[in-house]
C-alpha cells in the first residue's frame, strides 16, 4: 500500500529518491574531500576506504529499507496509535516495519552500491572464490546486523519513548564509524564495537579478509567467516528485546 501510494506521484518519488541519493552521498563526498588533501587515511587508500564505505552503506540501506520505519515507534507509543497495530491479526513487528514503508530509501542502497561497485573496479585484489563469495555474504549479514540494531532500538523506545536520538547514535553513528578504517579509531572504541556492540562484523572484519589487511585487534583469520553467526546472535537478542519491550508496553490510553 505504501509502495503504491508513493508511486502515485512519480515526479515527487523520483525527486525524493534523487534527494536521498544526494543526502546520503554527501558523506562520501566528505571522504573524497579528505582524500583531495591526503593519499592515505589511517594507512588505507581511497579505493579501500570506498570498499569499506560501500559495504557499510549498502548493508545499512538494506536494513533501513526493510525495518527503518521502526525508528518511528516512539511517536506511536507517545500518541497511542500503537494500539491499532496490536489489535490487528498480524505480527506487530511486521506492521511496524511496513508502516510508512519508504521506497525512497532505495536511494541509500543505490548510492552505497555505486560506491561499492567503483571500489571493486579500482581495487587491485587477487580474487579467490572465498573472497568473491565474501562480498555478498557480508552485505547480507551486515544488513541483518543493522536490522537487529534497528529492532533493538525500537524495543528501547518502549521504555524511553522520546529517546529516538539514542537510536540514531547507534544506527547512523555505527554506519558513520564503519565508513572509516578501524586503524583510525582508538583501541578501546574498536574493542567496544567488536565485542560489545558487534558492528565491526558488518564490514571491518570481513573486509580485512578481502583486502588482505591485518585484522582489527589481531583477531584470528577465521573471524571473517563468523559474520553470519554474529548476525544470527544479534537478531536473536534483538527479537528477545522486542518481545520484552512489547510485553512491558502500556498504552497511554489516549
Amino acid at each position: 500500500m505504501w509502495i503504491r501510494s508513493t508511486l502515485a506521484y512519480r515526479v515527487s518519488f523520483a525527486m525524493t529518491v534523487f534527494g536521498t541519493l544526494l543526502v546520503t552521498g554527501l558523506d562520501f563526498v566528505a571522504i573524497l574531500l579528505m582524500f583531495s588533501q591526503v593519499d592515505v587515511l589511517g594507512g588505507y587508500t581511497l579505493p579501500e576506504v570506498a570498499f569499506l564505505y560501500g559495504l557499510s552503506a549498502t548493508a545499512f540501506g538494506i536494513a533501513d529499507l526493510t525495518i527503518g520505519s521502526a525508528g518511528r515507534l516512539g511517536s506511536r507509543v507517545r500518541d497511542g496509535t500503537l494500539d491499532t497495530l496490536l489489535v490487528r491479526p498480524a505480527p506487530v513487528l511486521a506492521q511496524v516495519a511496513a508502516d510508512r514503508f519508504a521506497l525512497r530509501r532505495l536511494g541509500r542502497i543505490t548510492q552505497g552500491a555505486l560506491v561499492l561497485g567503483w571500489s571493486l573496479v579500482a581495487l587491485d585484489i587477487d580474487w579467490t572464490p572465498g573472497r568473491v563469495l565474501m562480498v555478498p555474504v557480508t552485505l547480507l549479514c551486515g544488513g541483518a546486523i543493522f536490522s537487529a540494531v534497528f529492532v533493538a532500538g525500537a524495543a528501547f523506545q518502549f521504555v524511553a519513548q522520546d529517546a529516538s536520538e539514542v537510536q540514531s547514535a547507534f544506527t547512523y553513528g555505527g554506519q558513520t564509524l564503519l565508513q572509516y578504517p578501524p586503524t583510525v579509531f582508538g583501541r578501546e572504541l574498536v574493542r567496544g564495537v567488536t565485542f560489545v556492540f558487534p558492528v565491526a562484523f558488518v564490514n571491518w572484519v570481513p573486509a580485512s579478509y578481502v583486502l588482505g589487511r591485518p585484522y582489527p585487534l589481531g583477531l584470528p583469520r577465521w573471524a571473517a567467516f563468523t559474520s553470519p553467526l554474529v548476525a544470527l546472535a544479534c537478531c536473536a537478542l534483538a527479537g528477545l528485546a522486542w518481545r520484552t519491550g512489547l510485553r512491558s508496553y502500556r498504552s497511554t490510553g489516549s
Partner: protein
Amino acid sequence: MGSARLYAAVASGGFRRYATYRVATAAGVFTNTVFGLILVYTYLALWDERPHLGGYDQAQAVSFVWLGQALYATLAIQGGGFETELMERIRTGDVAIDLYRPVDLQLWWLAHDLGRALFQLVGRGVIPFAFGALVFPTALPDDPVTWLAFLVAVVLAMIVSFGIRFLVALSGFWLLDGTGALQAMVVTGIFCSGMTLPLNAFPGPLGEVVRALPWAAQLQMPADLLMGETGPLSAFAFQAVWAVALLAAGRLLQGAATRRVVVQGG
C-alpha cells in the same frame, strides 16, 4: 517597549517549550557525544597525515569537532527548529490566522527560535563540548574577552541560521509540499556549514565559494574567532552582512506571500 516585552515572552516560551523534552535532550547529548567521538578520530587521522591542513593544528581540529557538535542543535544545522511547524501552518492555511495577529510573523518566529536556540545551547551543547575538552587536547583561549566575543558570534550565527530557515519555510507558500526544500536545507546545512570538514580545509575554488556563503557564518566564524584565527570585527561584519541580507530577503518574501494569501482567501 511593549513589543519588546512581547517578543521576550515569546522567546522565553520557545526556551521553556524545548526545556520540557528532558529525555529527548539527554538523548541528544548522548548522540552528539558519540558523533563527536567518531569525527574526532577521523580528524586526528587526517591531521596526522597532513599537519596544519587548512591552517589548523590537531588541537584546533579537535576543538572544531566539539564546537560543531555543541552548536549542531543550537543552529539547527540539519533543521529541527520552527521551520517544519511554520511550513505545516502554511500548508494547512493556519498561517492566515497568524497574519491576522497584531504581531509581525518574522519577528515572532525569530524570537521563538532564539529562545529554542538558547535552550539547545545550554541543554545540548555544553555537555558534549565539556566532555570533548576534558578528554581530548583542545585549543581554547583562557582570555574571557575572546569567549565573550565568541558568544556574540554565536548569537549572530543563530540569526543567520534563522534567516536561512525562514526563507525555506516561506517557500512553502509557492511549493506547498516542503519536503524538497527541507531536504535541500539538510544537504546545504551539513555540507556548507563545515559539519563534515572545516571549511578552511576545502580545496581550491570550492573552498573559496563555501567560505563566502552564509553557512560559513554559522560554525566556521565562531570557531575561528574562538581559536584566534580571525579577528572579532571581521567575523562580526561577515555575519552581520549575511544576517541583514537574509532577514531583508525574508521580509520581502513575506510581503509577497502575504499578498498571495489574501488573493487565495486563506
